């Protein structure tokens, strides 16, 4: 066993941490959140240049990483700075799905993703699917040589910026079957595709996407008809590792801000950290943070093996629980300051908690863990 980062990952971590410390301070980040686009193309271009996007893809796909620990290295740093740029949506999910299922022509998009030249969105969840990955009501019907999509997709992160949406649709099977789901590359300007975009509380933007007789050539399909689910499950697993790591990074910031505040804020003539009622709770945060770090390592280390889904369910459940504790306790121990928009903790706490609404919440992952442990 070895718990150290490789030299390459260590370098990536240092570079990314330095870049974000320089360029992504609270005021700049909050301005990005409030902007119309909800992210900065300038920051995006530089993330590409620093190799952050390439680190999320294997060499075979044109990158130089792509393993669980590459994902955690990148996302922990993104989380630490509260980054809202859509790395998860464009690279891990979008680019990752094309890399997994695409033919050579389609895979040229992966190169563009790595270079920072294109945005993608994974349009999978639906108004009634909640966190169920197999529940797909959107339909894909053959019509001559074409395929026609109909349905609605809910809370599609990064949809407005995406040049292409990767849309899941059912070609056969019952509404919650894993079999029968296909993925299609749908240009954002396709006729019949409409979006209602909006900001999200944790930063970034998403959209409700309506597909009303969207007509595509059969060449828009990624992989073979009805067989997309294993690739979806694999990419969602990778995205869950990313979310867990991002939340871990954000928690580290929350705890560090709390540590500094407890040492500097004085009430009753002494630093509030000297009150044991707070000191012990701060210690609990540190203890839980170590647990969270280990859970992320477990999940990342098993991303490629048979225990993958159970490890990921465990990590996301644990991080969900610890995340709520860290966000709430950090705010509480700050008093009023912790409630203010312009203080760094505000966005960080929102990011931590709102991550628990993506790709399954604490309860969903608890259920998954029980199911998979019984099997």
């Amino acid at each position, binding site marked *: 066993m070895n718990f150290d980062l490789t030299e390459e990952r260590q370098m990536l971590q240092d570079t990314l941490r330095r870049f974000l410390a320089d360029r992504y301070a609270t005021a700049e980040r909050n301005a990005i959140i409030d902007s119309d686009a909800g992210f900065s193309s300038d920051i995006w271009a530089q993330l590409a240049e620093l190799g952050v996007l390439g680190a999320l893809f294997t060499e075979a796909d044109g990158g130089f990483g792509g393993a669980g620990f590459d994902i955690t290295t990148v996302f922990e740093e993104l989380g630490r700075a509260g980054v809202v740029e859509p790395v998860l949506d464009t690279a891990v999910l979008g680019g990752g799905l094309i890399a997994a299922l695409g033919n050579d022509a389609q895979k040229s998009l992966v190169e563009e993703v790595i270079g920072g030249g294109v945005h993608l969105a994974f349009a999978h969840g639906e108004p009634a699917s909640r966190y169920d990955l197999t529940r797909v009501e959107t339909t894909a019907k053959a019509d001559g040589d074409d395929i026609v999509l109909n349905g609605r997709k809910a*809370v599609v992160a990064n949809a407005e910026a995406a040049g292409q949406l990767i849309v899941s649709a059912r070609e056969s099977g019952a509404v919650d079957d894993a079999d029968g789901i296909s993925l299609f590359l749908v240009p954002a300007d396709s006729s019949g595709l409409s979006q209602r975009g*909006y900001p*999200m509380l944790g930063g970034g933007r998403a959209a409700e996407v309506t597909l009303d007789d969207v007509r595509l050539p059969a060449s828009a399909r990624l992989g073979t008809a009805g067989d997309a689910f294993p690739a979806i499950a694999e990419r969602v697993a990778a995205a869950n590792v990313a979310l867990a790591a991002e939340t871990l990074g954000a928690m580290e910031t929350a705890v560090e801000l709390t540590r500094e505040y407890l040492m500097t804020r004085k009430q009753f003539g002494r630093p509030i950290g000297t*009150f044991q009622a707070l000191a012990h709770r701060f210690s609990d945060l540190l203890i839980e943070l170590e647990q969270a770090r280990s859970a992320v390592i477990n999940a990342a280390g098993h991303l490629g093996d048979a225990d993958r889904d159970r490890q990921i369910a465990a990590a996301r459940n644990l991080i969900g629980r610890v995340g709520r504790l860290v966000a709430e306790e950090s*705010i509480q121990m700050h008093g*009023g300051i912790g409630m*203010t928009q312009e203080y760094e903790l505000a966005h960080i*706490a929102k990011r931590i908690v709102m991550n628990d609404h*993506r790709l399954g919440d604490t309860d969903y992952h608890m259920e998954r863990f029980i199911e998979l442990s019984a099997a």
Partner: protein
Amino acid sequence: MDLSYSPEEIAFREDVRAFLNEKLPDELAEKLRRGGHPSKEEQENWHAILNERGWLAPNWPKEYGGCEWNAVQRHIFEEECAFANAPRVVPFGLSMLAPVLMKFGSKEQCDHFLPRILDGTNWWCQGYSEPGAGSDLASLKTRAVREGDHYVVNGQKTWTTLGQHADWIFCLVRTDPDVKQQEGISFLLIDMNTPGVEVRPIILLDGTHEVNEVFFDNVKVPVENLVGEENKGWTYAKYLLTHERTNIAGVGFSQAGLAGVKRMARAEVSGGRPLIENPHFAARIARVEMDLMAMATTNLRIISKAAVGQAPGVEASMLKVKGTIIRQEINDLARRAAGPYAMPFVSEALEGDNDPVGPDYAGHLAAEYFNYRKLSIFGGSNEIQRGIIAKVKMGG
């Protein structure tokens, strides 16, 4: 022991319900249900409606136009208002300042200010906290120096709730810097239109503007606006704080909130079944509901012990701690129930100026979860309340 409501109490509940049915504007209730915030005008209008019915001041004695309701009546009223999505009554004039004036103010102050609180002429805010004086309130520095027939006030208050709407602020100010902290504080009423008063917004983490900084730069305040005696303000302030804690358990809000969570959990589908049938979520709901059932009784037990208008002692601290834990737990459940639709945040939709994204009950839940973290911070944080409980029970 008898846990049932008397026929009079049942009739009272029906009265309240009928009144709310008839008088609470539908549009306003709908806006609040969706997580909107009442405008100043809507808030004032609601106060006027309550005042017309004689129900604006539940704890005031009748001679000043109050209701003199007992604990059970107050509980019934709060519960019905919460279920009907009525705006909360702004407490600063009605349930904070007024009891202080009645007990310590002059007859002139009572005769002048109390009617203006009831009829909405004055909107009050609370100027206690300062940047350096939060939990350690007695360390406050805002200085008032007597010069002839007025005081000159310099300093800063912060976290002033709805100060942007207020025209008067009651302040704790330091009138004697040379004695023990608690003994040099006075209670001053300040007209916010006086030159030298400046209000600046503080935006909270959910994007709302509900608190402010208030700056005082050589503000002249007539000596008539001193409440009680100079340097006795700390006594009055503590008296006020116990009143601030009377509805602190917020049982009515919790009951309405929990009912809302259940409604959502019936509408949301998880794994092909209603969320309310999901064993994990059902267990979460059950746990809070059991706590709340006990809390409702704890609340009634404690507040019925105290006579009308009187505030309970250390038990108020217990109510605050447990009551806010329960309320915050319900906020947490509500955001969970919304699933992925907790993420969109279209603030204009909450105020009715845009369509909601997803189910119309979901748009404000995550924001509200964050906003209500304040419950365990303000009015004496839960840590300070626990300190009080321990101190009272163990001395020291």
